[in-house]
């Protein structure tokens, strides 16, 4: 499931380095306190969320930061 991020988040992400060509690996903090770790954003604009977070909208996002999980899927 891909969410299109608002300009505020795009701007923030463009000020952060990429993780690889065309993408960033990020952690997403939600209003309800849940943290979604190690998900991808493409072109600083499209956030890919796991199916388990299907109901999440951009209004639920409190913060997006670069993920501390390493780039290759291993914690």
């Amino acid at each position, binding site marked *: 499931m891909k969410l299109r991020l608002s300009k505020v988040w795009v701007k923030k992400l*463009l000020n952060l380095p990429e993780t690889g*060509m065309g*993408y960033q690996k990020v952690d997403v903090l939600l209003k309800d306190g849940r943290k979604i770790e190690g998900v991808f954003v493409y*072109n600083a604009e499209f956030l890919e969320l796991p199916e388990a977070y299907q109901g999440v909208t951009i209004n639920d996002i409190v913060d997006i930061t670069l993920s501390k999980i390493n780039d*290759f899927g291993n914690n």
Partner: protein
Amino acid sequence: MIRIEKKWEEVLLSKPETGMGYQIVEYKIGRIKQKGIVLNAEILINENEVESLKQFSLGLKETKFLETAESSRNIEEIEVLSRKEIISIDEIFLGFMKGMNIPAKDAKVSYTTKNEVFKRFSAFKNDKRITPEGGLLPGTYTTTEEDAKNVKTGKEAVDRYALPNDDPAIYVFTVKPPEDTEVKRGVVQPLDDKKGGGVEVLFINGSPSNTVEGPVEIPAE
């Protein structure tokens, strides 16, 4: 691979490193001048041997090098090259990095050479890392022009550069940064079922305006 004599070790230790733990040198055996990489001021690897370092890619151990290296008393001269003198530094360094299989983020800073060209594959025509003035934002990844020759389709780009986005990266931007732009060079690591293995070049501080052209569109598959 040559184990360097003590007398040359002392010479090398009195000279600055090219990067962390290594020096790029020119040395003379007989009448022939050659270039290579010296590790830890004791092991000399000819520039034509760097590919063989791949065998150590799963666990680079100095002892392995020492076991393999042959002693040589035939070196007549050895000098550390300054960055300005090393025309092919990137090729040598890249070969070395390939052997070590290090991703760009973990690599040491290096510098672009005069007229060096890079490519960026993207699934987005309006790639947001390309500034409206035709530059690159800091922290943007590319590949070398040479490595990009391995990629003919957007799907191949996804596989070679292990892009998590499955959409084919069909838009190819060309980057021509000024000489001495700071970059980190490395090898793309596999991601899930994507092989990686391509060269990745991270533009630490981006690239100035009017250095990015394109995109050119390639077939999806």
